[in-house]
């Protein structure tokens, strides 16, 4: 017992954050701190966005009102939509995922804690930058989808639109990072025995959302980048007068914008699929089918974007195809709704506040869903599009389908975060006010839409039959504000006066409830071994059995005598369950470090077998400084101050370099833990490195997505046959072949090193590096030789943008190769795995493939 308490004491010292107040603000990287910061900040933005909405509703309460002037009204709806989408829902979901994905899979932190913190800081800076537009009187006013050419320089002079583009670009970066990190965390850091089919459905939903975020935000990032290039550097992509297309913006925006809806909605269904089983006291019905529904939703969401563009004059046949894919979403959602009903059937669940929010969700979301089916039909959408019918529809989907589950989730998980229960009575009052007033506020909007009230109008004329409905809607929206206020009061009061929550107040089945509330700084003491989907519901479940330090035995049963558990058939015992010996080794490796080593277990992606030990960085200023650097670049772009941009770039690059360069501690840790895990050195690649490799792979995915989107834009603007005059291909061909040779050399060098032969490593890798540099020089020179400038027309702009991006990613690749070479020369790769090298090589192959692809599309295709 004493050895155990010593161990816990050590863990506490390792994992508890710094105590000095400055460090406590700027240095934490732990998921429990950063996750809460995300959620609190996002909720503040939610309240601000709500206040903006109330101002708008006040203006619309009576016809021909002059409470707001048209400019201000346009600014308000732009800020309201953008705030709710980019600064509230998505970051809140990220925060929820950052806090609870590790908790639900028994991990101690997210996969890349510094990235988590970095993501928070740039989100915060982006949000602040976005709102600072109010202080300089240059508030964005072209709506949250900022259609070109209205958002172009000609019709939106000044820097208002740049606030939108640049402020939101920062939150997009944050979203890309969080998405990738959630994917890796869910796939690599699960508790031993938690196979992918035992993963809680909320984690599944965050996995799907993480993927969708990685892709969707990358697309939006490219779109905003192109528009910013057009506005700031005079390039042209969206202006029809110089060969651009305003519709291209809509394609790019909605390729992001539609998945965005599901990025918000999928986690909400994950929340519902978590709350329903808890209060039904029964595992979710048809778990696998629900997972499939989530995956199909996530995938099909990328094939729906055109249904936002039915009125742009697209071919009718093509538009109708999107009716069909939109209907497919109805199947996936229908499956989930019926699975919840089947789970609840006959269980007479306790109607606690979270459960009420779930029921409210189903009731409201059904209405949003059926109107969604209606507007997926092309002819009806031609009528409903951009009318208040749409406003009603998406508020039913987003408030009913997302915000209500989020409020339920707060009520449900608050006890875990704060250790105190929220008040049930107050919660119920708040719920009913929110539920009823939401319908009062938004149901009339359906009718307003059918009465032909377009959206985004600051005023309407008397005698058009709209007066009563608008007034009703305004009254409802104020009541909704009161409901949300009550909810906030409930949260605040609970922090001080709430009843202590205990371990598992709702008697839920998932791992986040296994420990004390609030969780200790290290989250879990020893790896929790999972043998069921709802491990806490299994009679006799014990938290950890490693090393005999059994503790987390749960001593309650769901309503004792009423529940009968039957252990299923036992055939095939031990086939794929965690290997005891491996677990003991892993636990030893986890404990092996001196104070300050934050360690976590890595498991296999599908089976959940222990694979290795992973090192978590501790508190550091790096994320804050890097975010500061990136934000300075953004600010410089906004204010058009060159030196500031360069300063920011240098700060960010240096910090990222330091961040990626492993500390002596980390190297020592990796070396020692690998020795413990694999004493005989038999395993050529212990799994601890997989976390880094997955991260590198996700980075490659992001880079490839950017290039594919750029090429899509290029082809969209230029057409498949290319420009009439093909640019000279000789020099680019030489440069690209050099890269290919470099990639082959890298592959040879890495292959030899893996076999233990480091003889030719340095020359091969150096040669590859030189070829990379040669590519930069030759390709750069060939671009300088061209007789057209990037601002000439849309073709030239797209051509130079693709080339510029290729030069950028090759430069990064060269830097990574230099780093790998340096590490090798300094002997840092010995004794441990050449993981950083493998990651650099993976990135290098990706970059070479992308460079070749761009060469083919830009230079060869026009020759045909």
């Amino acid at each position, binding site marked *: 017992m004493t050895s155990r308490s010593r161990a816990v004491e050590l863990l506490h010292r390792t994992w508890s954050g710094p105590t000095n107040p400055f460090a406590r603000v700027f240095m934490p990287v732990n998921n429990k701190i950063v996750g809460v910061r995300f959620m609190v900040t996002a909720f503040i933005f939610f309240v601000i966005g709500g206040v903006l909405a109330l101002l708008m509703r006040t203006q619309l309460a009576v016809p021909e009102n002059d409470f707001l002037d048209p400019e201000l009204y346009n600014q308000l709806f732009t800020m309201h939509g953008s705030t709710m989408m980019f600064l509230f829902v998505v970051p809140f979901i990220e925060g929820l995922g950052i806090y609870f994905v590790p908790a639900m899979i028994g991990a101690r932190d997210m996969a890349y804690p510094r990235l988590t913190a970095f993501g928070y800081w740039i989100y915060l800076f982006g949000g602040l930058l976005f709102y600072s537009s109010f202080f300089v009187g240059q508030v964005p*006013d072209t*709506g949250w989808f900022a259609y070109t050419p*209205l958002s172009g320089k000609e*019709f939106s002079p000044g820097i208002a639109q740049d606030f939108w583009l640049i402020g939101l670009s920062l939150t997009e970066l944050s979203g890309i990072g969080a998405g990738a990190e959630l994917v890796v965390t869910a796939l690599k850091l699960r508790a031993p025995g938690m*196979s*992918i*089919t*035992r993963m809680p459905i909320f984690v599944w939903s965050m996995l799907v959302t993480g993927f969708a975020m990685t892709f969707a935000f990358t697309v939006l990032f490219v779109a905003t980048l192109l528009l910013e290039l057009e506005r700031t550097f005079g390039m042209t992509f969206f202006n*029809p*007068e110089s060969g651009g297309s305003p*519709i291209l913006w809509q394609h790019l925006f909605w390729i992001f914008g539609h998945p965005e809806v599901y990025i918000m909605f999928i986690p909400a269904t994950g929340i519902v699929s978590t709350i329903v089983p808890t209060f039904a006291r029964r*595992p979710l*019905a*048809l778990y*696998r089918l629900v997972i*499939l529904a989530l*995956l199909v939703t996530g*995938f099909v969401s990328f*094939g729906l974007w055109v249904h936002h563009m039915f009125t742009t*004059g*697209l*071919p009718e*046949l*093509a*538009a*109708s195809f999107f*009716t069909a894919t939109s*209907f497919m979403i109805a199947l996936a959602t229908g*499956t989930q709704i*019926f699975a919840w009903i*089947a789970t*609840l059937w*006959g269980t007479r669940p306790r*109607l606690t506040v979270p459960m009420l929010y779930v*029921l409210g969700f189903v009731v409201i979301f*059904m209405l949003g869903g059926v*109107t969604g089916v209606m507007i997926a*039909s*092309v*002819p*009806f959408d*031609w*009528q409903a*599009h951009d009318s208040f019918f749409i406003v009603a529809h998406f508020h039913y989907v987003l408030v009913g389908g997302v915000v209500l589950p989020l409020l339920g989730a707060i009520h449900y998980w608050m006890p875990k975060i704060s250790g105190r229960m929220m008040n049930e009575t107050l919660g119920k009052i708040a719920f009913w006010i929110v539920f009823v007033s939401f319908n009062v506020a938004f*149901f009339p909007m359906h*009718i307003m839409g*059918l009465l*032909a009230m*377009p959206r985004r109008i600051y005023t309407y004329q008397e005698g058009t*039959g709209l007066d009563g409905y608008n007034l009703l809607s305004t009254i409802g929206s104020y009541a909704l504000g009161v409901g949300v206020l009550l909810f906030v009061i409930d949260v605040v009061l609970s922090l001080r006066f709430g009843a202590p929550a205990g371990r598992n107040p709702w008697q839920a089945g998932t791992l986040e409830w296994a420990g004390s509330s609030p969780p200790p700084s290290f989250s879990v003491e020893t790896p929790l071994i999972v*043998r069921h989907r*709802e491990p806490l519901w299994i009679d006799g479940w014990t938290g950890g059995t490693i090393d005999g330090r059994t503790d987390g035995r749960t001593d309650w049963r*769901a309503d004792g005598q009423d*529940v*009968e558990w039957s*252990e299923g058939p036992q055939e095939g015992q031990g*086939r794929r369950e965690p290997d005891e010996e491996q677990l003991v080794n892993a636990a030893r490796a986890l404990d092996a470090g001196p104070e300050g080593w934050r360690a976590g277990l890595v498991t296999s992606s599908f089976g959940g077998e222990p694979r290795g030990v992973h090192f978590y960085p501790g508190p550091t200023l790096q994320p804050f400084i890097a975010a500061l650097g990136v934000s300075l670049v953004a600010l410089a772009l906004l204010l058009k101050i060159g030196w500031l941009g360069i300063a920011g770039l240098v700060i960010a690059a240096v910090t990222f370099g330091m961040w990626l360069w492993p500390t002596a501690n980390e190297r020592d840790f990796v070396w020692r833990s690998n020795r413990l895990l694999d004493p005989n050195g038999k395993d050529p690649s212990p799994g601890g490195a997989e976390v880094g490799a997955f991260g590198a792979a996700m980075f490659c995915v992001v880079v490839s997505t950017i290039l594919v989107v750029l090429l899509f834009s290029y082809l*969209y603007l230029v057409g*498949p046959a290319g420009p009439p005059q093909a640019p000279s291909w000789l020099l680019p061909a030489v440069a690209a072949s050099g890269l290919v040779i470099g990639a082959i050399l890298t592959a040879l060098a890495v292959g030899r090193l893996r076999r233990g032969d480091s003889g030719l490593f340095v020359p091969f890798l150096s040669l590859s590096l030189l070829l990379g540099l040669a590519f930069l020089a030759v390709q750069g020179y060939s671009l300088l030789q061209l007789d057209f400038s990037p601002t000439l027309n849309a073709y030239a702009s797209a051509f130079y943008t693709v080339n510029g991006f290729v030069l950028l990613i090759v430069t990064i690749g060269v830097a990574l190769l230099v780093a790998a070479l340096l590490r090798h020369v300094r002997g840092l790769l010995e004794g441990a795995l050449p993981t950083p090298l493998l990651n650099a090589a993976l990135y290098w192959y990706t970059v070479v493939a992308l460079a070749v692809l761009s060469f083919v599309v830009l230079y060869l295709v026009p020759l*045909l």
Partner: protein
Amino acid sequence: MTSAQQLLEASPLQTATLDSLLHGVPGGLPPELLPGLLSALPMVALSLLGVLYILGVARAWRKAGWGRGISVGRASAGLLGLMALGAALSGPLEALAVLLFSAHMAQHLLLSLVAAPLLVLGVPLLALLWLLPPRFRRTAVKGWRRSGPIGRGWRLVIHPVAAWLIFVVILWAWHLPAAYGAALTSELVHVLEHLSLLGSAGLFWWMLFQPLGRRRLNRFLAPVVLFVTALQGGVLGAMITLAPEPWYGHYERVARATGISALADQQLAGLLMWVPPGALYLGLACWMLYRALAGVDAAMSTPNHQRMAPAGTPYLNSLVMASALAIAATGGFANAQVLRPAGPAAQGVSELFWVMLIIAAIVCVLVYALLFTAIFRRRIPNGGEPPLGTGPFVVLGGIVLPIVILVPLLFWSLALTAGMVRPTEDAVTIEVIGHQWWWEVRYPEVGVTDANEIHIPAGRPVRLQLTSDDVIHSFWAPGLQGKMDLVPGTVNTLWIEADETGIHSAKCAEFCGTQHANMRLLIVSEPQESFDEWLQSRTVPPQPPLDPLIREGQQVFLGSACVYCHTIEGTNASGRLGPDLTHLATRMTLGAGTVANNRGNLGGWIVNSQAIKPGNRMPPMYLESEDLQVLLAYLESLE
């Protein structure tokens, strides 16, 4: 049966062999023989192959037992694959492929998505090998040994990355206009095209199914590969479908002969590439993923499912959610413009809306009823399982029911859409140009320009040609038709028709800047004769004013800044930034529907329109009181 194991190691490239058989070597034959031979060859070769395949399978079964060696499923897949190949290469599709892009696309899909996977599953070369004497069989197998060059090469090309890349690169490469054109003009290239499509598709499906030998593709990776494949196919399909112009000159030239528009044909082809393959990949991915998940579950020693009896919590009062709001809503619906159609297009949509609304209400009530039954019902039989059992309940309710409802709706919606886009000879053409924040209206047939009001003949279809001079606007006359955007640089067509005479309101529906709210217009539908009369009157240039007061007003107008932005026919004023004022006095409203057109409003508008429509493009005019009066008199005379 050990030889079968050896055979499993070997992986024949049967598809490519087969295709080369089909097309023969056309190069060396005299040209006049070529077409006849070429058209006969596939069928002959395929029939031969079919017979050999059946013989091989029969022999395998005779030796190894019924359904062994090559399973019954594989044998039927092989035969079906051969039939699909036959259907693709000879028959109406082959003939149509030269005329229609979409037919050619269908042919390619049949080759690569039907014939190829079926043939891969059917392992025809394995069947053919059975026809050989055992000694030759062994020799043949030896050539495919793992260590041999052929075996190594084969393993390289069926490596997931390689096979996928080959498949995708070949697919995209053939769609380049140059390559596609070559395939259409040269028979040899055409054969090569089909061969490479079939062959690369064979590799792709082999990589996914791995019918023989060890699986090398992770079972979770296979669905990912399918997702990615669907994505790239979708991108190509989308590009083809959404392209503004035909990609391939060949089909443009034949289009004149067939009478089918090359663009429509191309859109159909793009959709063919987009939808059926997408559905196939997605469905297959779901199935494989489900199997993979089940596989992990099956491999774990402790099952996830726990049977639990329902807990006996006390009775809770049943609560039915009153849909009072919905009832209140019907009052509003009755007045809704969208639902009070005044033209055939809006009429169709209105009917669609009511049917969808009723269905939606039924579905909602059903789901609410089930939900509240699930929660509140007092005694539940069957241990808490929903009726029909959990699985069937969810599948029927969540998948089958929506399909049953949505598929007819989809077809209705399609039919309705098609009906709204109807080129008619008898139509009147009117051009509408969007400006921030007013509408320019032109009657190109007679060269008349007007603003903020459209006159149309009742009962006759009108073709609106929509474009914009600045940002994107959207034309919405809710009583007549749905919306269509006015996009700068593009002309969109919208068909409207009014059943009766009368005045219909219309407005801008796409946010277009500060005064989006006040960008309205009126559509005056009148009998054909009065429309003709009205149009005729507009073609006559107005006479110079006789009344001295009015003439003085004209001088004020021509002497002020008005002329920089406005046109009045018959005078020097020819500015184009603002609305044409030639017939200002006949308009019903000012400022694109902001206020009624009367003397007071007109004066106020001229002096400071910013007070009436803040942010509009017209600056305040500083005029002496007398000047304003004569100016008003002049403007009011512009009939």
